[in-house]
């Protein structure tokens, strides 16, 4: 028999038993639907997370000093971490000179526990200062400068960048926003005990992405030195974090090793990305497990249906053998039937999974919209690989389930089969 005839005959046999075929395939249907929905959720979430990480830049290496209390950079109010090996100005030069490093940024945590006001045009406004030293802020805050420039990233960076929203709160209309750039201002700091100091600086830019304002590293250093009464702040505490930009993932990984060799803690987003991917793989596998269980049950159903089909068609098998069908022909006929049941379930499973994930995605976004959170990206992503994989898997489940019944049908003794009533 030609493969075409085997397929046509197998499908013809299934068509004769439409209801049974459909009922048998429902198990596969449910299994594939579950797997498709769960894995597309996994892929969707993974894509959201990894896209964000990639936007930040995988070529970036974060360096922080090792502290006795662990790698904490936030700095609780009024307490200094006193790292064993602070990143001093001399270290900055060494780090910046590492092969592969293209540029270097150095940050200092903004002072905590101080009452800060901004004096502009003789009027005082509360100053809402954002920490530049967190990874997320460092990576996200560069964008969306609408006037002037971003803060200089190096240790000598001075000045203030105000957010669009903060300028609104100051009562300055958008049209006059640009005129603020270059204006000298005074940051007025007051401790809870009432000690006061003024720090003159300049507005260097307007940024739409921020909520409050950001301050240059040199200005932050000046405030910290006064607040902690520590003129040697850079010697005892040093910069944290320091950010090294490299040109490639390979460089990032090499630089990361060199930094660790110098006794600092280095982290790249690639490590984070690897970790995230690992976690998602586990999550997707676990979620698919439910579908696999359904498929296991489905394969038993397919095997059962095919064994029943042998009993019904014993005589027919005998006739076919008498007319010249080989054992292989009979085997292939039954395998094709079982595989087709699997594929049928797979097609409906993928369609159902697609519909279900569309529906869940729609509901999720509806819910998010009601809570004012905006995540435009889809939570469920049905990739062509997932569709193809699901169809192949469903077919393979059918084929495997059909192996034993098909072998049994093929081995039937033609004489006994012909005598069968």
């Amino acid at each position, binding site marked *: 028999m030609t493969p075409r005839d085997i397929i046509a005959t197998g499908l013809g046999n299934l068509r004769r038993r439409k209801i049974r075929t459909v009922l048998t395939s429902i198990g596969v249907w449910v299994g594939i639907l579950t797997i498709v929905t769960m894995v597309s959720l996994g892929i969707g979430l993974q894509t959201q997370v990894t896209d964000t990480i990639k936007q930040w830049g995988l070529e970036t290496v974060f360096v922080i000093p090792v502290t006795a209390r662990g790698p904490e950079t936030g700095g609780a109010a009024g307490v200094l971490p006193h790292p064993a090996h602070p990143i001093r100005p001399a270290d900055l030069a060494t780090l910046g000179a590492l092969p592969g490093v293209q540029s270097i940024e150095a940050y200092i945590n903004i002072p905590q526990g101080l009452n800060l006001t901004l004096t502009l045009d003789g009027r005082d406004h509360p100053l809402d200062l954002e920490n530049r030293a967190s990874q997320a802020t460092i990576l996200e805050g560069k964008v969306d400068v609408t006037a002037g420039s971003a803060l200089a990233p190096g240790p000598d960076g001075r000045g203030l960048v105000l957010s669009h929203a903060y300028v609104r709160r100051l009562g300055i209309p958008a049209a006059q926003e640009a005129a603020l750039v270059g204006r000298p201002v005074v940051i007025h700091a007051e401790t809870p005990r009432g000690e006061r100091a003024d720090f003159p600086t300049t507005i260097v830019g307007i940024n739409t992405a921020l909520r409050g304002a950001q301050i240059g590293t040199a200005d932050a250093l000046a405030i910290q030195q006064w607040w902690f009464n520590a003129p040697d702040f850079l010697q005892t505490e040093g910069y944290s974090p320091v950010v090294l930009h490299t040109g490639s993932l390979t460089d990032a990984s090499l630089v990361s090793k060199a930094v660790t060799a110098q006794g600092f803690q280095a982290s790249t987003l690639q490590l984070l990305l690897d970790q995230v991917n690992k976690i998602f793989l586990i999550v997707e596998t676990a979620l698919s497990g439910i579908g696999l269980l359904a498929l296991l049950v489905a394969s038993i159903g397919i095997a059962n249906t095919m064994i029943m089909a042998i009993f019904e068609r014993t005589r*027919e098998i005998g006739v*076919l*053998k008498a007319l010249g069908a080989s054992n292989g022909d009979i085997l292939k006929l039954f395998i094709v039937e079982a595989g087709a049941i699997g594929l049928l379930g797979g097609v409906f499973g993928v369609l159902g999974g697609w519909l279900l994930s569309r529906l869940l995605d729609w509901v999720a976004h509806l819910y998010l919209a009601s809570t004012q959170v905006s995540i435009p990206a889809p939570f469920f992503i049905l990739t062509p690989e997932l569709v193809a994989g699901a169809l192949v898997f469903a077919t393979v489940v059918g084929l495997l389930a059909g192996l034993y019944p098909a072998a049994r049908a093929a081995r039937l003794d033609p*004489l006994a089969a*012909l005598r069968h009533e």
Partner: protein
Amino acid sequence: MTELITLARPAPASTNGTAPTSIIEMRGVVRRYKMGSATVAAVDGIDLGVARGEFIALMGASGSGKSTLLNLLGGLDQPTAGTIVVAGLDLAQAGRSALVEHRRRHVGFVFQSFNLLPHRTALENVEVPLMLCGQPGPARRARARALLEQMGLSGRADHRPSELSGGEQQRVAIARALANQPPILLADEPTGNLDSTTGASVMALLRQLNADGITLVVVTHDPAVAAYADRIVHLRDGQITEITARTPAPAAAQEDRR
């Protein structure tokens, strides 16, 4: 076109000028079955030669071994001992794939209960052996149509077996048995499920095929059916008791065939 409507392969002219060699040659054929602890010899030492183009009837009571002998000739079963050479192939020694080839190319089966595939039309039933041999669709449809036409069934080609009379079903089955132009036709009680008139017309058809050159082995317990044969082989308990030649003499039958 002439080739398409050839019903059976004509006996090839013998190459060395001697008489046609036998197409079936059985020597000491034994077939034993295990029935629980006992062993039963369904066929117990048969020696028989069948000439190319001959019409043989196997007669005997049920259990005489006639059907077992037919199944052995058809390659559906293999002997416990002895040799059966059919169309040059020793069926006793043949492997599984050689037996499949034998069933496809050397023999056509006609059953008492027709054994048409119920979900296929008459045309599709005739196509089955051609399909099993891997013939492409258009060629096998044309061949099946021509065969049905020869059987006088052109109008019934698209009918299912359940829509056909017994005689029509058996003629479809004969067309199916002839699909691959086998040199031998094996029929097991071909008229057993038919009334006497229909049975006679089916036998006339088989007789005509035999006259066109096909070797015919028919199992029957009906003397009227056996009367069509050149030779009648009587069996009892798996052994040949008597071989009778048909009247008029086989010579006349030989004349008919030419």
